[in-house]
């Protein structure tokens, strides 16, 4: 009897054991050891390993590069999240139709998302080039002055945001499209019978019914934008003059270019805390709104 009880309680453990093992080895252990390392001057070169106490953490708060790269990350997130949600929604509304046009829109909206970062950045770096790039070619043809997109402080981040939206909006688009297709046709039918026009249907039916999806997309997008690294590293390498360097690149440079794993761990924990706070706050905000709608 007791044995059966034990089986019922713990039997499931065996089924999740493979996952649990991977989780512990590749997730839990690195998280713990990273935190542990942040109190040492651990070097990638594996030479010295002295206990520093809170020294790395003190250094971090006095390091302007940490704060400027954190600011860049937040600026990127603030600039990229709204268009990535709104453009995705508009695209989904446009593509949510049957026939060849719907298929063509769905295909072309989602296509960039499947490209790897290296390909995307290669294409866009050429598009942005002064002298022979596509964008500047159009600008000069239209009688405007050339813009040095990737090498001017205040333009480089915008250029990266545009590229990112073009590249990644397809995923949010797909989530919206699925949600749109989940709204029963009868609701619209009833609204039409009551005399609601297209705009009224959009604002009174479609958008409210999509609010849970919007909340999900916003949280996912916010976290994804905060983790920005690859396209910036490949397009500007954080330049010009670190104007686009995100915090993850600074963590990478500290840990892997400068071999200071302990210090990089401390910065990544600061960043980890920020992501958790933002995600929790966001989720609370949006899940509340979802219920009231």
């Amino acid at each position, binding site marked *: 009897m007791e044995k059966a009880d034990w089986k019922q309680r713990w039997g499931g453990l065996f089924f999740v054991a493979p996952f649990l093992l991977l989780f512990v080895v590749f997730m839990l252990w690195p998280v713990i050891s990273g935190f542990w390392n942040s109190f040492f*001057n651990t070097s990638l070169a594996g030479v010295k390993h002295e206990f520093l106490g809170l020294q790395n953490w003190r250094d971090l708060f006095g390091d302007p590069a940490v704060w400027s790269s954190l600011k860049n990350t937040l600026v990127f997130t603030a600039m990229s999240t709204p268009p990535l949600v709104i453009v995705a929604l508009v695209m989904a509304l446009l593509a949510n139709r049957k026939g060849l046009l719907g298929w063509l829109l769905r295909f072309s909206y989602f296509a960039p998302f499947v490209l790897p970062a290296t390909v995307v950045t290669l294409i866009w770096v050429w598009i942005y080039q002064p002298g022979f790039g596509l964008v500047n070619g159009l600008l000069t043809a239209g009688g405007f002055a050339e813009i040095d997109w990737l090498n001017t402080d205040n333009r480089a981040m915008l250029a990266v945001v545009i590229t990112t939206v073009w590249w990644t909006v397809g995923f949010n688009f797909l989530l919206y499209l699925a949600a749109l297709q989940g709204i029963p046709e009868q609701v619209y039918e009833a609204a039409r019978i009551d005399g609601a026009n297209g705009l009224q249907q959009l604002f009174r039916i479609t958008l409210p019914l999509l609010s849970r999806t919007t909340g999900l997309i916003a949280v996912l997008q916010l976290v994804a934008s905060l983790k920005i690294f690859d396209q910036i590293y490949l397009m500007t390498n954080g330049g010009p003059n670190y104007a686009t360097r995100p915090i993850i690149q600074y963590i990478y440079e500290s840990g892997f270019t400068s071999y*200071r794993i302990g210090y990089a761990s401390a910065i990544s924990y600061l960043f980890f805390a920020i992501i958790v706070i933002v995600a929790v706050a966001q989720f609370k905000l949006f899940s509340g709104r979802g219920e009231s709608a």
Partner: protein
Amino acid sequence: MPPYSPGRRAVLGGLLGAFALTGCGTLRGKPKVREWNLFGGGDGARLLQIHQQYVAEHPDVAFQAHTLAWGPPFYTKLAMSAAGGRAPEVATMHMSRIKGFSPTTMLDPIPVELLNAAGIQQSDFLPATWDRCVVDGKLYAVPLDQHPFVLYYNTEICKKAGLLGPDGKIKPVKGVTAFLDMLRAVKSVTGKYAVSVDTTSPWRLWYTLYGQLEGKFFNEDSTQLVLDDAKALEALDLIAKLASEGLTPRSANYAALVAQFSNGDAGMSFNGEWEVTTYQTAKLPFSMAPFPVVYDVPKFQGDSHTFVLPHQSHRNADDTKATIEYIAWMLKHSAEWAAGGHIPAYQPVVKSTEYLNLKPQAEYRSVAPNVLYDPDAWFSGSGAQLENEAAAAFSGIASGQATPKAALAQFKAATQKLLDTPSPV
């Protein structure tokens, strides 16, 4: 009942043992040489060809070569494998990175007697090159080549600009005025730029000019920054002037630099010599020459690829012998390597007719003794943090976003911060 029925554990154990034995057996059958390199460009394609020949001539060696991404990714992986004591037998490394790589802990010394036995002597190299490979009296690297900052010129454009001598080669210029006159003549022909150069990362250009002014960087033991502000500014001012006159683009990254020289927007290019293959493939009418002596002394920023033995906890004598023989073989075949642009470090090849007949690769070989290496520090060298800081500070000069003075102040502060950081190696 059968006399013996093996249990599950016995079977598993036996299998494991058998695998281990056969594994060892095949590995020890041939000496193994695993090589890691960072040549992903035109020189990488050439390295593959040379390796194919090596493999064909050495069926008795288990040889494997791996090309990893240039710069920080390569050095990160090399450092981690060496720190763990499970590195490949041999790897390429920039000479400027050797001292910053903690040679005594992460590299194994080169057994000079094996090198001699393979037919390579100290006297086969320029003394300055060899000496930089020696740390605490031990040899930690074998130089393969040198790659200086050079001048590429489009022969058709420069001929129209009247810059070529009767032999069809560019007439050497000396001094700032002559240098500027030359560039203005090129610009008048192209109608666009005179020179294509990487303005987003002007370290090579600046360090060359600063070196030609005989500027110092660190004190003797690399603990203090002793930059000469006046000289540093003179070099930065010249970079600003080139851009403001439109002789160089205000903004060009590496890809744009190559494109602008290829499509004739610029009649000259300042760059490392490794793009030879690119321009040859593009069938461009071009040649190469040493970078002009703009200031007082001939100095040219550059570096050198070397072979190192990254640290292994259990180094096998047979493997090491085969590895040293591989290095010696590569040096003796470095004329093929030189076709990709690099100046061989191995002097018997430099004197060979095979190398001397390589055009334009042999045109700038005279600069070899005057190659200026990056300053010695753990954060310095090709692809290391110091070059990044220089790129960040100096990229605004050509684009007009920063004054030379402000850029220099920023660069000095960044370098000082790196100096103040305890070395992690």
